[in-house]
């Protein structure tokens, strides 16, 4: 670890979003001339930390110091003025502007009050040359560049702000191997220049290769900071998990693995899915694990008929299906239901009534000919509310008046009304309270017992362990590991998620 006083230090910083504690009493420091890795599971507070450091979020409590002096940023440009520059995961480039204009976007060089294009291009050329990207024409539009080149322009843009502290949030995930090499070299050069780099990556070998200091975060707290090489991979994984797996899950049945009902073979879609093989039997809950954005969402959506241009085959009960819309996916023959990721924008029509939301997927089940039968509708709505114990005052109230957990129940109830054979769940317990979570676990097991095939993606490893008969871990658009029975442990899931030591045996 570098000596001397830190360039940035956080003292007792907390950040709460309502009842959620994203960061709790965090002390953290980083030093000039070091490359500092921040590790942690999804939701450990890494992103919140860098957002506070770069002025995107205000801490709820606590203070931040730079070079020993307290600072507080009300907006990102304040942080940039002080020398903290962040390269965010989501690209922050304007697609319809030129490379040069993007690099100088916040502070373009001016001549007589107008933008000096010559100077702007010169600045861009210098910065691009510095990161080995002299082949990028400063006049070309961002939209015409590949994702990897865009990310490099993003890095050039950040360097143009003369950072003292450079934060790279998953900045290498979109890069080609050649560009990754360039970034490695750049980080070495920055270190020599005395710049502090904060490096967030899920690729352990990158962290090993680049960083001199590692900090582990877990559940919004800073667990430990240590120098590279003082702990083994296994120790680091244990630090990242370090919590008890709850016992509030329903018991798993003990029986042989059922015959496959839903069978996915070599499913590929653009860059997100690279040949997925997966089987789900009736009565089985199969978990999808892995870090965010490894293709899990795309897998569920492609089964549901949302994606165009799929390759590979999907069979249900021996019959090949290729739905090209959710309407087809839910129809007879496939009978698939999807509880989507974001209930507020994808699962519900928030201003509409609870009743309207409940029947939105099954008009045909409550209608006589083209007309909706009021009695059938009432009966269906009432039985759905009872079955899932949705706490409602009046089913004619807007669904937005319900709590998050009850809203999610409405989404699930909507799909149960269609009587599906296959249920796809995309992180159904995100942001809902513990009590409702347990009800959903219980319901999932009941549905499985009724003979439904359930494919369950969650970012919470404890849920994978507690709920699933089998867990398939995805990494980079493939399933890299399939765990069953007692082999489903946090260590195994985390190791597979980070793709440590499983490269050779990837499926």
């Amino acid at each position, binding site marked *: 670890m570098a000596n001397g006083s830190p360039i940035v230090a956080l003292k007792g910083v907390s950040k709460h979003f309502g009842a959620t504690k994203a960061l709790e009493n965090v002390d953290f420091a980083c030093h000039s001339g070091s490359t500092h890795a921040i590790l942690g599971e999804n939701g450990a507070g890494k992103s919140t930390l860098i957002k506070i450091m770069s002025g995107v979020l205000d801490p709820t409590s606590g203070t931040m110091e730079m070079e020993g002096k307290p600072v507080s940023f009300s907006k990102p440009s304040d942080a940039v003025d002080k020398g903290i520059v962040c390269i965010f995961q989501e690209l922050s480039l304007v697609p319809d502007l030129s490379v040069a204009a993007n690099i100088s976007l916040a502070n373009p060089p001016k001549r007589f009050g107008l933008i000096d294009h010559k100077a702007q291009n010169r600045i861009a050329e210098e910065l691009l040359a510095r990161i080995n990207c002299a082949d990028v024409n400063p006049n070309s539009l961002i939209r015409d560049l590949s994702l990897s080149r865009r990310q490099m322009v993003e890095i050039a843009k950040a360097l143009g702000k003369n950072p003292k502290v450079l934060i790279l949030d998953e900045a290498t995930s979109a890069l080609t191997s050649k560009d990754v090499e360039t970034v490695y070299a750049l980080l070495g050069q920055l270190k020599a220049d005395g710049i502090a780099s904060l490096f967030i990556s899920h690729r352990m070998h990158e962290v090993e290769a680049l960083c001199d200091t590692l900090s582990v975060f877990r559940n919004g707290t800073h667990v430990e900071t240590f120098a590279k090489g003082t702990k083994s991979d296994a120790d680091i994984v244990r630090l990242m998990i370090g919590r008890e797996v709850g016992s509030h899950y329903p018991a798993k049945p003990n029986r042989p693995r059922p015959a496959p009902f839903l069978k996915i073979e070599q499913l590929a879609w653009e860059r997100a899915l690279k040949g997925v093989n997966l089987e789900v039997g009736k009565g089985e809950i199969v978990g999808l694990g892995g870090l965010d954005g490894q293709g899990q969402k795309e897998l569920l959506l492609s089964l549901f008929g949302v994606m165009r241009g799929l390759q590979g085959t999907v069979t249900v009960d021996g019959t090949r299906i290729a739905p090209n819309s959710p309407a087809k996916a839910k129809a007879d023959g496939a009978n698939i239901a999807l509880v989507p990721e974001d209930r*507020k*924008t994808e699962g519900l029509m928030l201003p509409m009534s609870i009743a309207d939301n409940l029947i939105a997927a099954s008009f045909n089940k409550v209608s006589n000919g083209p007309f909706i039968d009021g009695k059938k509708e009432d009966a269906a709505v009432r039985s759905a509310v009872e079955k899932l114990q949705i706490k409602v005052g009046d089913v004619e109230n807007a669904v937005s008046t319900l709590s998050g957990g009850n809203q999610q129940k409405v989404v699930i109830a909507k799909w149960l009304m269609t009587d599906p054979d296959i249920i796809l769940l995309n992180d159904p317990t995100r942001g809902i309270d513990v009590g409702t979570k347990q009800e959903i676990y219980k319901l999932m097991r009941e549905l499985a017992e009724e003979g439904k095939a359930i494919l369950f993606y969650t970012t919470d490893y404890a849920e994978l362990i507690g709920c699933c008969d089998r867990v398939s871990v995805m990494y980079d658009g493939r399933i890299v590991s399939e765990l069953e029975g007692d082999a489903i442990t946090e260590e195994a899931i985390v190791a597979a998620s980070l793709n440590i030591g499983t490269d050779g045996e990837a499926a």
Partner: protein
Amino acid sequence: MNFYKSLDSDTKPIIIALGFVIMILIVGTIYTLSTQGTAPLLRPSYVLQQLQVGSFLGIVAAGMMMVILLGHIDLSVPWTLTAAAMMATTVGGPMAIPTGIAVGLAVGLFNGLGVAYLRVPSMIFTLGVDQVMRGLMVAHTGGYAPDTDATPLMRFLAAEKIAGVPVAIFVWIAVSLVIALILQRTGFGRSVYATGNREAAAYLSGIRTKRVIIGSFMLSGACAGIAGVLLAGYSSQAYQGMGNPYLLPAIAAVVLGGTRILGGRGRYLGTVVGVILIVLLNSVLSIMQMPEAGRQIIYGSVIIGMLLVYGRNQAVTS
């Protein structure tokens, strides 16, 4: 005030619009009593005559509402209406009315395909279609009013009376019943609301959102076609630009009736009240012998003012 607060947000605008209708009646009647000593606004025959004129607007607005509920708009109404009228009088005979409606359905289908599949914003696409229809009709007629006449059935539906009540009002009622039934009691109608609220959620619920969009535009076109047929019957013939005065009032009637311009909410009853409000406002302004310029200013100000009142009631959510 408690009663007012207890109303749901779909009903409030209707109550406000209804209050405004009554206010216009009172102000208009006080004016006529003080200047002429009569109260024509309260005479049934006068009211029925106004409603007869209003029924053309009412039918256009009924179709427009379907499209606005989706968060779209149909600006092709003026020349769809004119084209339907011209083609109906050209064909003549028993096929006149089916031809007019078919023209409306065809234009609506074209609009729907453009908006749903090509994803062109409806404001642009239907504006373009309006121009195309105009060009086609000028080519068809040579730019003059066609010398063909409306059929007797068209005249009967638009200009005759049954038991003192204009037949056009019955046509408006029939169209209204169909639209209200579709919106409230069919899966298609519920899908329109769902799609207008949140297209992604509706699509992921397995609603065929493209068909919903196409169906709504076809209903809008059909309504414009019916209005065109009636209007040709009312004036005994079709003429250039006959649909132009109906576009803005139709949109205004729908929005004044409480339908959200961004789609997803609104009740059909509101559109009916909105139509009555606009017809009444026009007739009171003409009774007052307001010069045309002043009439336009007041007309526009009332629409903006009422929308401001609604805006204050609807908290910005989600």
